[in-house]
């Protein structure tokens, strides 16, 4: 009671100085919150990109390298194109088969090799794993060969396809989607020719619920349309995993993907277990590539990554420097204040006050000032974050694509290769996308601010308190004289 009365009176007496110290701390803490807010915003933007690739709940993904294509007795090898034996017709060889006419529609696995579907179950049983689901990231490529040698060859079209494990709706790319029309998969759809399509793909191809989309020459009925976050490069079509396995081909072996997956999405029991989960999976599947979300984040390039580095390096150090300056000023001013109060503390010592009591009084006043500074700093932090939200330029991120295209060459009649790989979102191995950044103040940042404020107050007060504690009563009273 007396402690608080004394503390309140002293703060009021030295209000100008208290305000000055509090403002110094507020600027430092405000800057820390702003940097943290910006950093959180950039991280959230990166997370959006990652979620778009692998879903909300995925901590770790498991893939494997594809097997090299085996030699086949076909023109140009396994997947090749060139003038046909007819002397003018285009010829396309895929997975050991050569075509000179008609429509070629193939659904093939992307960059990753095939894993046994049972691997997902084995991973799910690991100690630190909460859930695991297999998926197939595929590319459907469609090429229409002209019926006559004089007709021009149309470039191929392709779309990325996700074979979704319906029993694990919280894992995989579809988990991040927001249903805008129709419905999503149910258990009854496990073996049905039904598809959920991405809103952008639906718009581009004039698809709606009830329309059909053809994949690997099989018609799928569209049952739902989903949107993915703006900062994403999502698959165009989602189909049940079992159907994807039945229709897809492994480009490395030319075999069916029945009983196979090419990605396993894994959720760790807790964020702290991610490292352990990685190690456990690497032990279980030595040939597999185990990638955590932080590994994936490091693969992101572009201005989002630059902003993350800027916020993480320059911003952090700037905030640290300002904080150090604020703490130093607060400490010096507190020590100066204690020097002016030497006679007062000497008198209190003469009255029998313990040094610790006087020190705690000084510390209490400093911490009080620090808390005021911390609250003001939180306010300044909100202002700083709002300014960043207003003025920050839109970021871009270059991310590894969810699927990869079929490496197909198409040759025109007698004129050699005329077209490269497939087109569409899945065509390239990396995609550059706009990333909207929204800086925000988190509860953690506010708690950190309050802790910093208290630490700043304690630091300043401990210097002052140490000085007060060293006073001998006679020496202090001599200052009065």
């Amino acid at each position: 009671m007396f402690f608080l009365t004394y503390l309140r009176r002293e703060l009021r007496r030295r209000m100008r100085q208290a305000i000055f110290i509090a403002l110094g701390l507020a600027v430092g803490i405000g800057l820390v919150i702003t940097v943290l807010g910006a950093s959180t915003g950039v991280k959230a933007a990166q997370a959006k990109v990652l979620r778009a690739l692998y879903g909300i709940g995925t901590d770790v993904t498991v893939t494997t390298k594809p097997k090299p294509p085996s030699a086949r007795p076909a023109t140009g090898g396994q997947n090749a194109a060139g003038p046909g034996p007819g002397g003018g017709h285009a010829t396309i060889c895929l997975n050991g088969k050569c075509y000179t006419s008609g429509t070629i529609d193939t659904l093939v696995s992307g960059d990753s090799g095939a894993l046994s579907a049972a691997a997902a179950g084995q991973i799910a049983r690991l100690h630190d794993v909460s859930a695991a689901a297999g998926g197939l990231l595929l590319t459907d490529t469609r090429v229409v060969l002209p019926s006559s040698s004089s007709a021009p060859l149309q470039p191929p079209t392709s779309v990325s396809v996700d074979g979704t494990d319906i029993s694990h709706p919280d894992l995989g790319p579809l988990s991040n989607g927001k249903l805008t029309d129709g419905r999503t998969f149910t258990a009854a759809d496990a073996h049905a020719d039904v598809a959920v399509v991405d809103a952008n793909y639906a718009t581009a191809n004039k698809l709606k619920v009830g329309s059909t989309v053809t994949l690997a020459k099989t018609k799928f009925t569209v049952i739902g349309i989903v949107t993915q976050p703006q900062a994403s490069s999502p698959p165009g079509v989602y189909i049940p995993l079992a159907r994807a396995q039945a229709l897809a081909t492994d480009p490395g072996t030319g075999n069916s993907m029945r009983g196979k997956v090419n990605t396993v999405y894994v959720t760790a029991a807790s964020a702290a277990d991610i490292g352990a989960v990685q190690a456990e999976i690497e032990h279980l599947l030595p040939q597999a590539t185990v990638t955590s979300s932080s590994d994936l984040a490091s693969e992101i390039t572009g201005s989002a990554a630059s902003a993350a580095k800027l916020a993480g390096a320059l911003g952090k150090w700037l905030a640290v420097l300002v904080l150090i300056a604020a703490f130093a000023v607060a400490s010096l001013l507190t020590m100066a204040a204690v020097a002016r109060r030497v006679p007062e503390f000497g008198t209190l010592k003469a009255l029998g006050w313990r040094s610790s009591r006087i020190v705690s009084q000084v510390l209490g006043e400093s911490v009080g000032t620090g808390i005021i500074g911390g609250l003001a700093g939180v306010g300044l932090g909100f202002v700083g974050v709002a300014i960043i939200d207003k003025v920050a330029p839109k970021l871009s991120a270059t991310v590894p694509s969810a699927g990869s295209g079929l490496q197909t060459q198409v040759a025109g009649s007698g004129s050699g290769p005329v077209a490269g790989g497939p087109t569409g979102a899945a065509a390239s191995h990396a995609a550059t996308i706009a990333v909207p950044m929204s800086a925000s103040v988190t509860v953690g940042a506010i708690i950190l601010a309050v802790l910093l404020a208290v630490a700043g107050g304690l630091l300043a007060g401990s210097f002052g308190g140490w000085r007060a504690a060293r006073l001998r009563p006679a020496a202090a009273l001599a200052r009065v004289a």
Partner: protein
Amino acid sequence: MTINVQHETPIYRLAGVSKIYRKGSREIPAVRDLDLEIRAGEWLAVQGKTGHGKTTLLQILGGLDRPTRGQVEFGGQDLASIPEARVRKVRASSFGFIFQTFNLVPTLSAQENVEAALIPLGVHLAQRRARVSAALDSVGLGDRAQHLPGELSGGQQQRVAIARALVKAPKVLLADEPTGNLDEDTRDEIISLLDTLWRERGLTLVLVSHDSSVVRRAQRIGVMARGHLSIRQDTRR
């Protein structure tokens, strides 16, 4: 009115006390080989010129400073050699200080300034308030309890300081030039108040002053000159 009863047993026994300050390699003796006994309930006044060791002697008596040599026996304990924590306890419970410049905490009210003396004793809040109120009443400032020092005259501030010294019911009152900052009328008021309180409460009063009219009221007068104390008068009032 209660009359101060003096005991023959000394409350203080100082033997061979010297205090030497060091400034670089130079030694400045403030008190030299001082032997002194002060009886319980006695009023001893110490007179002397500025810089001749009066305040140093008072600080040694009050446990605010330690002598360079010698013994300062108070209540069976040698204040010169016991640990600082024990000296602080003795100071908190047995000594009341009155300073020339009043030394009140400017942000605390009269009541809170007096209350500050009870904080080290761990007195409960309700009891603290009652004792503070009684102490302020005893110096005639019961109606000024909520005033800040800046709102009080010099005489009133010194009364608050006296109340602060008395509120813990000390055995010894140590006053260093208590009237040095006051005009003549106020000086007489304060000295009369001290005289009354000394008589009523059976206090041992050691008062340092260079003012002869103040010193004259004491039972014994000592004079400090170049660090030596000589007792000139023993009125035995």
